[in-house]
């Protein structure tokens, strides 16, 4: 579906240059906090020294993004069990005698007894940051009441306060980002996000964390309801150091970097690829992207040809280059002889899309199509006779020879043509991303093709990718899907075309794209839930009939 959609956007691009098309919006939704968001929120509220110990149940990726999965995920019993234990652990750390002076702006009258005022003084502002809106009176009273009861029973104000804090951290108001809305006065279904809901949407989009106090203050004052106020906040957020973690989170999602958590390489075949390399290979991708798009603020498409990156000591072993300061990330430019160009040639991208003990042109080609071009490769057919691939010497064949066999079967050839022309031109990298010129004793033929463009090697692929019109469209689509936590859908086609036009005009720079999306009315557009609309229609009908009967 994504592939067809991208093509449609390209087709309508020439019709742009007009005011931004307006979307009707969708029903308000819930988005479960991702693990990284949860960790960011705790770090932002209480500092890095509060340990978020334990593992989170993963949110399953949908339509290519964990963000979309989060928009459809609930919290299973085993997940909630973990959240509850985690909340107690965090709350216990916050109130312990080492940390309480940092976070609790008051002292109880008696340390062994409840203190309603002090509990309230602490829980009210913390609750505002956790819920991303002020607690209403009943919520605050409940939390303070729990703290008081627990303090009474445990004979310790701070122990009790931890229970009050825990009650906020296991609440659905914290664990889900809620699109709270205000009903419009006018036509049926009219609704708009509250200022606080807008603040959350902005904050998780740009920072991947909860809104800070200033953004919540802007929500309270109504500043986010007018374009000047909104743009001022967006500009402030774009200048914040937190933008980096937001951009990293987006590309980590788009490039499936969560899969590094379970990436395995055979350490007998690839002894250099140790656990530190896995961590650094992931970070190298993100640092390269971040530097290119944020620090240099240059054309997104150049990411696929750039030779600029960063190198660490452990990565030096994989790239076979000496690193003078192994404990630092050092800016590094690949020479032509090193055979690298673009993020798709970095060890992280290559290793992530390979088998544990060998390369895979098909998996790599599929990754380029799906992750970078937003094109869905059809699932493999269920009725293939694999006996034709049972070539006795297959383990001594080059990848190209093995795939030639696949391409001899019509039901396989269609998809392999889409993937293998890309993946074979990355065959100069082994399963761990190390450069090589030979495979199973033969010189590697890295020629390939992408959408009608033939090339000789990985440099040709890099050029073809950077010039492929699907590359920027895919970024725009992913940016929207990530920010909205849903597939933008066909209704958003004109909006995407509009954003594409602006993206092109900006020189394909990512920061202006983020600004365009965040400032768009469409980014916040909602309609009332169906039940609300139906109720409104009924009331309207009733009013009309009453009017009618009275006239």
């Amino acid at each position, binding site marked *: 579906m994504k592939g067809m959609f991208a093509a449609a956007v390209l087709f309508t691009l020439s019709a742009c240059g007009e005011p931004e098309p307006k979307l009707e919006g969708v029903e*308000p*939704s*819930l988005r479960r906090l991702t693990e990284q968001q949860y960790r960011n929120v705790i770090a932002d509220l209480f500092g890095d020294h509060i340990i978020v110990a*334990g*593992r989170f*149940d*993963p949110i*399953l990726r949908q339509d290519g993004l964990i963000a979309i999965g989060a928009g*459809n*995920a*609930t*919290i*299973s*019993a*085993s*997940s*909630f*069990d973990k959240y509850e234990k985690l909340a107690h652990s965090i709350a216990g750390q916050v109130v312990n005698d080492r940390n309480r002076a940092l976070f609790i702006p008051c002292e109880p009258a008696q340390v062994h007894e409840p203190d309603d005022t002090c509990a309230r003084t602490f829980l009210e502002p913390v609750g505002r940051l956790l819920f991303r809106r002020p607690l209403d009176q*009943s*919520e605050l009273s409940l*939390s303070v009441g729990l703290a008081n*009861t627990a303090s009474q*029973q*445990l004979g310790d104000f701070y122990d009790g306060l931890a*229970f009050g804090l*825990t*009650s906020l951290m*296991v*609440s*659905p108001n914290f664990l*889900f980002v809620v*699109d709270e809305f205000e009903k419009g006065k006018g036509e049926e279904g009219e609704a708009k996000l509250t200022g606080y809901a807008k603040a959350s949407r902005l904050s998780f989009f740009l920072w991947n964390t909860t809104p800070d106090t200033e953004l919540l203050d802007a929500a309270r004052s109504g500043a986010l309801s007018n374009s000047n106020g909104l743009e001022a906040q967006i500009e402030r957020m774009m200048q914040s150091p937190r933008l980096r973690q937001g951009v990293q989170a987006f590309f980590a999602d788009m490039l499936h970097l969560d899969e*590094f*958590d*379970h990436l*395995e390489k*055979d350490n*007998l*075949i690839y002894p250099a690829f140790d*656990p530190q390399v*896995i961590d650094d290979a992931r970070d190298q991708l993100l640092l390269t992207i971040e530097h290119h798009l944020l620090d240099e603020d240059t054309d997104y498409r150049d990411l696929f040809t750039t030779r600029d990156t960063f190198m660490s000591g452990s990565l030096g072993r994989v790239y076979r280059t000496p690193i003078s*300061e192994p*404990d*630092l990330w050092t*800016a590094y430019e690949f020479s032509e002889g090193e055979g690298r160009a673009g993020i798709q040639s970095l060890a992280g991208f290559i290793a992530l899309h390979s*088998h*544990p*003990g*060998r390369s895979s042109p098909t998996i790599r080609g599929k990754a380029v199509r799906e992750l970078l071009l937003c094109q869905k490769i059809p*699932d493999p*057919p*269920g009725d293939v*006779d694999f*006996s034709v691939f*049972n*070539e*006795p010497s*297959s383990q001594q064949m080059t990848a190209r020879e093995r795939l030639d066999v696949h391409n001899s079967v019509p039901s396989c050839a269609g998809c392999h043509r889409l993937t293998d022309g890309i993946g074979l031109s990355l065959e100069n990298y082994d399963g761990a991303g190390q450069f090589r010129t030979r495979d199973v004793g033969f010189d590697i033929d890295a020629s390939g093709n992408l959408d009608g463009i033939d090339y000789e090697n990985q440099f040709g692929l890099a050029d073809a990718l950077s010039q492929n019109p699907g590359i920027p469209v895919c970024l725009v689509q992913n940016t929207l899907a990530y920010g909205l936590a849903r597939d933008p859908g066909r209704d958003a086609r004109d909006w995407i075309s509009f954003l594409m036009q602006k993206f092109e005009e900006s020189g394909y720079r990512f920061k202006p794209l983020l600004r365009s999306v965040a400032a768009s009315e469409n980014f916040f557009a909602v309609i009332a*839930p*169906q039940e609300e609309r139906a109720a409104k229609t009924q009331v309207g009908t009733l009013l009309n009939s009453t009017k009618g009967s009275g006239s």
Partner: protein
Amino acid sequence: MTLLKTKRASRRGFLRGTLAGTAVGVGLPFLDMFLNGNGTALASGAPLPVRFGTWFCGLGHTPGRGMRALEGNDYEFIEECLSLEPYKKDYINYFSGFNTPLDGSISAVHYTGWVAGKTGSVPQGFGMIPAPTLDTIIADKIGTKSRFKSLEISSTGNPKDSYSYRNAGNHNAGEVSPLNFYLRLFGPEFRDPADKDFTPDPRVLLRQSVLSAVEGDRSRLVRAVGSEDRARLDQYFTSVRELEQQLEVSLSAPPALEACHKPKRPEEVPVGYDVETVNANHDTLSEILALALACDQTRVFNMMYTQAASEARVKGTTFTHHILSHEEPPDDHLGYQIQTAWFNERGYEALSRMLGTFSNIREGDGTLLDNVLIFAQTDTSDAKTHSVIGIPSMTIGKAGGRVNTGLHINGNAAPQSRIGLSLMQVMDVPIAEWGTRSLRTSTPISEFLA
């Protein structure tokens, strides 16, 4: 240009250990003084609980190299499944010939088969979970009186390798670390029946109060979202209530289960897909699981050996189990894929070892195996061709005498949902029909039911 290379806490660090593991002990005998005369009930009159579990290994076994049918309903395990033979007569039924009618849908390779078997419905593509998996339905019925409604465990190191779902957005992820699994079960919150002086922990009551308070958040939220999200909220609140029930259990003195004792705390160990590691973790996780069952910490579990399209591999080799199943040529003389068969054998050996561990837990006159029902499943009937026709499966255990054992049951092309329906009925789920379209059935497998 240089940047400080911060040593941030590695996400992988939470998932992977660095030290070699150690085995944990298994159960002590269940003392007769706590049982009635025939060993089928606790002295209190409560019957011994029947537990339900699933076990999964990817890619099944080579057709014709796992089981040989004998006269009538008899059979014998051979070749790749030979290690299961000691348990066959008393505990294992082998199901062959049960089909997965697709009703025009395309078979999602390595996916449709197990989803259909566990949900009674054919998914319309990867990632779709058309109905709750049967373990969650059974857990709703029998899992409310234990500390954990169900436990999910994966030997592969990847928590996503768990096939327990209420829907696509409500997944029960697998525990992958033996140490974390141990701590969750036998950490500070474990109430040891050997402790004579039980007093309820006041903090548990307070934790319950916190959860009760959360219920108050429902009304404001429900007003804010549409019907689909309301359903997701309902599932969240169900999870809250389940934890409340779980805490309720820990407010009572633990039952006197003499087979119950804390296992030895395992070390942090590596996780991963190489067979050596998978086997080591499967063994350790099985031993902890056996004691969790002996201590009545849960009555439902889902254990995964390897996932569908198994990525298991041997260190130093370039081909995984899955790739071999497609690309390895059959041996000229033996006629089958030798390396693929090797992986298959390792899976059933691991299952056999798990059954050995369970059989070491004495319960009355028998063992844990007499009071458990395990559904052992795989994804294909012939990995080489991705076939979902006649996917083999097994039931293991006597389920407290509720099922017959030692049978080969040939479905003769009946829908595989009949197996799932039978399992749920054995486990007291009040269900007369199950499945959708051609998988819909109201006919349990009569010869299986005692």
